[in-house]
């Protein structure tokens, strides 16, 4: 007899996925004039979950008009305290329906239920709670007295944390008095559509939140719509630059939360077992589909062998498989396209002479899967050390001295996150000071909180999300 973990699948009975979804505009689900639909699938088994609408430029126009009307007639007329109450309501409903959101997110995205249940959805609700309390305290946001909202905000979010990114965008926008036109990612539209129902349950005034499903064309129509006053985008650096160029000639404000190639620096005196957990959490959390992932492991050369032995042992315990199984640690890659990209990057690692290692694991036949993987023998020049892979692939690089570690860590156009593992307090503060990154995790990794500002240096983006600093993205001060 062996000790075996149960397939402990979370029941899908709690979710009610409709065969088709319309667009959410002006408080109602409405059909697109284009009539175009596309499928969204469960990446763990490739089964079609539903068909959602491809919003056209005309639909974007309708949504912007609704948001503008809502801004003029209702939302901007409300006091901050009243706006805040709507956000509190939304937060409560998210908590009440948390399990439903968690299961739906896991099905549409492929991420493990353990993560949607314990991280994505509770944090999304927390984000609404946190920002609800800001709505009537904006004079304290640090932008001077009576800062003003932009008006209509266009928001485009990625597929890696669909509901959480929605909360990161919608909660501060509404708290600061803006109205929203939001586009969820093409491959993960379902929780955003469920959120539309939450807005209805909360009696949020019509047009304050509009949700348009669609692909990059819909996103471009939002970015380029003249009625939009501000764009907030989370996604790749490549698309971020295109958006920055598109809005350059307009009065639109812009915040960007883009890619990263985070260095996770391990010094010789690190608390080794917790460090191994931190490395795992840094790169295998959410299948590595994390912009702030610790995708470059910078390990002090004198402990490399010991650390990698421990890492290998720990990686062999990672449970890859059915995302709805409560024991699953690593779920499905979100899409066939992303899987191809990860494979291509890993193959470039092989081709450039790095050495690949993965634990023995049986991947399911259907669906998109990639085993937890690391490469050793990686140098700064390798593609896998420079380009964002956005998958469960870690590049191991060694260093000899603290200065060398920092130099290598900073030697990237990105600047989103970094990790430091050492038992020495002064070294932590020194390293944190030297690292050019917006979020530094010392002796921990991939922690998020609505009170904690998040965002990047350099090509990792513009602006912050969360905390008091995040409010600046949605308010205008009287200086520019």
């Amino acid at each position, binding site marked *: 007899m062996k000790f075996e973990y149960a397939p402990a699948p979370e029941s899908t009975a709690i979710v009610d996925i409709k065969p088709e979804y319309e667009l959410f505009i002006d408080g109602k689900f409405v059909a697109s004039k284009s009539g175009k639909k596309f499928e969204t699938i469960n990446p763990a088994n490739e089964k079609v979950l539903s068909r959602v609408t491809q919003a056209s430029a005309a639909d974007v126009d309708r949504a912007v008009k609704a948001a503008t009307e809502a801004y003029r007639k209702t939302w901007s007329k409300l006091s901050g305290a009243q706006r805040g109450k709507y956000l509190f309501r939304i937060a409560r409903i998210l908590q009440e329906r948390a399990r439903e959101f968690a299961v739906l997110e896991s099905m549409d995205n492929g991420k493990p239920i353990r993560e949607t249940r314990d991280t994505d959805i509770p944090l999304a609700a927390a984000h609404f709670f946190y920002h609800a309390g800001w709505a009537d305290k904006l004079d304290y946001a640090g932008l001077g007295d009576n800062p003003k909202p932009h008006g209509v905000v266009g928001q485009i979010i990625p597929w890696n944390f669909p509901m959480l990114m929605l909360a990161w965008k919608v909660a501060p926008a509404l708290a600061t008095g803006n109205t929203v036109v939001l586009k969820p990612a093409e491959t993960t539209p379902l929780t955003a559509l469920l959120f539309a129902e939450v807005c209805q349950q909360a009696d949020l005034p019509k047009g304050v939140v509009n949700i348009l499903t669609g692909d990059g064309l819909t996103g471009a129509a939002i970015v380029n719509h003249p009625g939009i006053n501000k764009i907030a985008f989370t996604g790749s650096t490549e698309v971020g*630059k295109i958006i*920055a160029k598109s809005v350059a000639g307009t009065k639109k404000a812009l915040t960007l939360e883009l890619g990263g190639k985070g260095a996770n620096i391990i010094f010789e005196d690190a608390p080794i077992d917790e460090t191994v957990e931190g490395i795992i959490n840094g790169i295998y959390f959410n299948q590595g589909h994390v912009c702030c992932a610790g995708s470059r492991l910078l390990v002090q050369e004198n402990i490399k062998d010991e650390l990698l032995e421990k890492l290998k042992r720990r990686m062999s315990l990672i449970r890859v498989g059915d995302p709805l199984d409560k024991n699953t640690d690593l779920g499905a890659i979100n899409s066939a396209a992303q899987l191809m990209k990860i494979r291509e990057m890993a193959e470039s690692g092989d081709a450039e002479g790095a050495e690949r290692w993965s634990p023995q694991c049986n991947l399911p036949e259907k669906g998109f899967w990639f085993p937890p993987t690391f490469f050793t023998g990686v140098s700064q020049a390798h593609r896998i050390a420079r380009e964002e892979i956005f998958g469960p692939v870690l590049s191991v690089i060694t260093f000899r001295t603290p200065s060398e570690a920092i130099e290598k860590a900073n030697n990237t*156009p990105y600047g989103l996150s970094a990790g430091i593992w050492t038992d020495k307090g002064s070294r932590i503060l020194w390293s944190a000071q030297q690292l050019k990154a917006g979020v*530094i995790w010392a002796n*921990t990794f991939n922690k998020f909180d609505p009170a*904690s500002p998040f965002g990047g*240096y350099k090509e990792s*983006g513009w602006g912050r999300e969360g905390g008091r*600093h995040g409010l600046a993205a949605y308010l205008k001060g009287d200086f*520019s």
Partner: protein
Amino acid sequence: MRLDVRKTYKLFIGGAFPRSESGRSYELLDAKGNFLANPALASRKDLRDAVVAARNASEKWATASAFNRSQILYRVAEVMEGRREQFAAEIMAQEGLTKAQSLKQVDEAIDLWVWYAGWCDKISTIYGSTNPVSGSFYNFTTPEPLGVVAVFISENKSLTDVVHGIAPVLAGGNVVIAIAAEDYPLSAITLAEVIATSDVPAGTVNILTGKSAELAPWVASHMDIDGVDGSGLDAANYEALKREGADNLKRIQRFKSVENPQRVLSFMEHKTVWHPIGI
């Protein structure tokens, strides 16, 4: 009658006052249309040199203590005070203002340095934060300098606008490449002379004179410039700057000519640090 000794207005790069490497200059007329000077007409290579000088000076200025930066900015004000007459004369010549009006502007400019000097060691206190995150973690956010910032000086007031452009960027720990307003290079270069003698490390402030429209595309596309204050550019040039500057996602802003801590913060990044709390 003694023939006066005229001054040659040159560039300010890396603590030195070179002529443009291109050998170019342009004729500057005073407010009445009479010849005033032949200031240097900076080229893209002068810009390139200025960026190198600035980058080399960046770490020293960024890691100087806030108190130290504050003292140095105050020192600039002190040294300016001794040159009030010279600054006033240049304002009168360039802008055609009265002596009284010009002196008032000088005073305003000096006081602006004093104001920003005081910000150096307050900005993190006021705009940083400790964040009450869930779980056993200490979490704080602190603003840090961006690095190298190019500033296109506005052209409303020949001297004050130079200070509006430079002082807040310095206060935040950034190094500066200022592109003077085309019509008002004298105030900028005389200010450079003050800066050169006020303990500001060489390369921390670099000042180019010439045509901002000519330099703007090179500033926009330069991958080693982290931020740009485009206040001195017209709408078309500013738009182009924003478009081309997106290649390395430069932080690009423009401001009204007002004193505001947001001018400091606009060229700072907020860094958030997490650490567990445990025994």
